[in-house]
C-alpha cells in the first residue's frame, strides 16, 4: 500500500510554488521530504493533506483522496502541523481526545492516555494546553495525532502519519524520541511522510528521502543514494560535505563547508 502523488502542483497567484512532484511513499517506511527554506516542503505536505488547493492527484492506499469525506480520510491518516494555536483553554488530555473523536479508534478509552505516555507527557494530562512550553505543546500534538491512528494497520490497511517538521522545537533527546516513534509506527506496518530540516536525523531515521529545490523534485531514493555532496550542494546552494563514520558506513553524516557559498 502506498501514498502516491501524480504531478502535484501548487500556485500562489502567478507564482508556481510547486510543480511536477511524483512522490511514492510506501507503508512500512519513513519517507522524508527535505530541501532548503522555500523549496516547497510544507507546500507539498499541504497539498497531500488537502489543506492547499492543488493540481494533480493524491492516491492514498489505492484511492484518490479527492471525493473522500473528511471522516473517511481521518480514519486513514493523521496530520501534525508545524504549530497549533488552540482557541480555548483545553486540558492536555482533552486535546488528545479531540484527535481520537474521529476515525476508528473512537471506542478505545485508554488510547489518549497511552498516546500521552508514548510521548512522555502522561503526567501533564490535566495541565492547560496553553500553559505548556513550545516543545511540550508539540509533543502533546503528536500524541493527539497518534491517538487518531493508534494502530498502524487497521483491518489490513496501513494508516499514515503526515508530519510537518515534527522535531522543530524539541531538544535533542526529544528529537530522537519523536523520530523513534515515527520509525516504530512504520516498522509496525504504518506509513510515515515527514518534512525534515535536520539532514542528519533524516539520515538516521528515513528509509526514503525526497529532495526538493525551487519547488521541483531534485532527487528521490534511500539516504545513501540521495544524501550526496553533489545533490545537497545543488539543493541548498552551498558546499556541503557528506562523510561516513567508519563504524557505520551506511549512515551519511553531513558537514557544511564554511564560507563557500556557490551563489546559486
Amino acid at each position: 500500500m502506498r501514498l502516491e502523488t501524480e504531478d502535484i502542483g501548487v500556485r500562489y497567484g502567478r507564482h508556481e510554488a510547486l510543480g511536477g512532484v511524483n512522490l511514492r511513499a510506501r507503508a512500512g517506511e519513513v519517507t522524508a521530504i527535505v530541501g532548503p527554506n522555500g523549496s516547497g516542503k510544507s507546500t507539498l505536505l499541504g497539498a497531500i493533506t488537502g489543506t492547499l488547493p492543488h493540481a494533480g492527484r493524491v492516491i492514498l492506499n489505492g484511492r484518490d483522496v479527492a471525493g473522500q469525506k473528511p471522516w473517511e480520510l481521518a480514519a486513514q491518516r493523521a496530520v501534525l502541523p508545524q504549530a497549533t494555536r488552540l482557541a480555548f483553554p483545553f486540558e492536555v488530555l482533552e486535546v488528545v481526545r479531540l484527535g481520537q473523536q474521529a476515525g476508528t479508534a473512537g471506542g478505545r478509552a485508554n488510547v489518549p492516555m497511552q498516546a500521552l505516555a508514548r510521548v512522555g507527557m502522561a503526567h501533564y494530562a490535566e495541565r492547560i494546553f496553553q500553559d505548556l512550553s513550545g516543545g511540550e505543546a508539540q509533543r502533546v500534538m503528536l500524541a493527539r495525532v497518534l491517538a487518531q491512528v493508534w494502530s498502524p494497520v487497521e483491518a489490513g490497511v496501513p494508516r499514515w502519519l503526515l508530519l510537518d517538521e515534527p522535531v522543530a522545537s524539541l531538544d535533542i533527546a526529544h528529537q530522537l524520541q519523536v523520530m523513534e516513534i515515527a520509525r516504530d509506527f512504520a516498522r509496525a506496518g504504518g506509513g510515515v511522510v515527514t518534512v525534515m530540516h535536520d539532514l542528519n536525523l533524516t539520515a538516521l531515521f528515513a528509509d526514503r528521502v525526497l529532495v526538493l529545490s525551487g519547488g521541483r523534485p531534485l532527487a528521490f531514493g534511500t539516504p545513501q543514494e540521495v544524501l550526496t555532496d553533489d545533490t545537497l550542494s545543488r539543493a541548498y546552494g552551498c558546499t556541503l560535505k557528506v562523510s561516513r563514520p567508519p563504524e557505520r558506513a551506511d549512515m551519511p553524516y553531513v558537514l557544511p563547508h564554511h564560507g563557500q557559498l556557490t551563489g546559486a
Partner: protein
Amino acid sequence: MAALTEISSRPRDRHARARALHWALAGVLALCCAVSLQIGAAEVTLTALLGKWLAGEPLTMMERVVLFDIRLPRLAMGVMVGGALAVSGAAMQGLFRNPLADPGIVGVGAGAGLGAILAIVLGTLLPVWVTDIAGNHLVPLAAFFGGWGSTLLLYRVSTRGGRTSVATMLLAGIALGALAGALSGILVYMADDQQLRDLTFWGLGSLAGASWAKVLAAAPLVVLSVGAALVLGRGLNGLALGEATAAHIGIDVQRTKLVAILAVAGATGAAVAVSGGIGFIGIVVPHLLRLASGPDHRMLLPNAALLGASLLILADVIARVIIAPAELPIGIVTAVLGAPVFLWILLRRRGLVDL
C-alpha cells in the same frame, strides 16, 4: 501497562464536573421557573393557586389572566430567549475561536434592528391588508427577516468556492453593521414622535410584550436552531485546533460553519424579534461555564442553554418587581448585572483574550 491503566482510570475532574453541573443547572432552571411564576407585581402566587386548585376552588379571572396570559407566556419566552442567546453566543465564540465573539458578529443584531425600524417607521406605508394580517407581529416579523437576511448576505459575501472565510465575515460584518446603522439613522430622522418612542423601547429589550402568539411563532424556530447548535459540539471542539486541523481529524468544516451560522441567525433572530436587544447573556454565560467546567463544547452548549434561560428568567423577575407596578426594560437589568461580570472575567484572566 498496569501503570497506564491506572493513570487512564483516574477520575476526570472537568468532565465529571461538567456533567454534574448539567444536572445542577437543570435544577436551577426549574427553581427559576417556579420563582418566576411565584413572584410578580400582582398578589398572585403559584403556591396559593396550587392550594386553591387542590382544594377544588375556582380561580378568579384576575388569577387566571395573571398566571396563564401573563406569567406563563412570559416565562416560556424567557426560557427560549435566554437559551437561544446563550447557545448562540457559545456557538459564535467556538466558530470565531474568540471568547468575545457574540451573535452580533454575523450581522443578526444590525439586520434585526434595521428590520424593526423599517417596520416601525414605514409600516404605515404598507397596504392595509398586509398590516391587517401581520397585526402586532409586523415588527417582530420584520426584525426576524432583517436578521436572517443580513446573515445570509454576510455568508454569501464571505464564501468563495465553497469555503467561508471567517475573517472576511468578521470584517464584512463591521461594514454591514455600519451600513445598517446609516440606514437606520435615515429612518430615525423620518420617524415621528410616537415612532421614536417605540424605537427606543424596542432597542432596550423587554419580555413585557410576551404573548402565546409570539411564543408559538418563535418556538419552532428557536427549538430547531438551538437543537442544530447543540449537535455542533464536536465540530466546534475541532475548530478550536484551527480549520485545517479540524478537517484533518475528520470534521466537515464547511458544514459545521454553515450549520453554526444558520442556527445562530435563526435562534438570535427569533429571540431579538420577540424581545428586542438583550445584551451580555451571549457572552457572559459561556464564559462562566468555561471557567466552571472547561471549554468542551459538547457540554458547554447544553449547559449554556440552561444557564442562559435561568439568568434571563431571574433578570426578568428583577425587571418586573423592582419598581412594581412599573417595570424596567430587561436589557437594562442584564447590562447592569452583565457588564461588571464581564469586566471581572477580563481582569481575572487577562491572558485569556488573545486578539
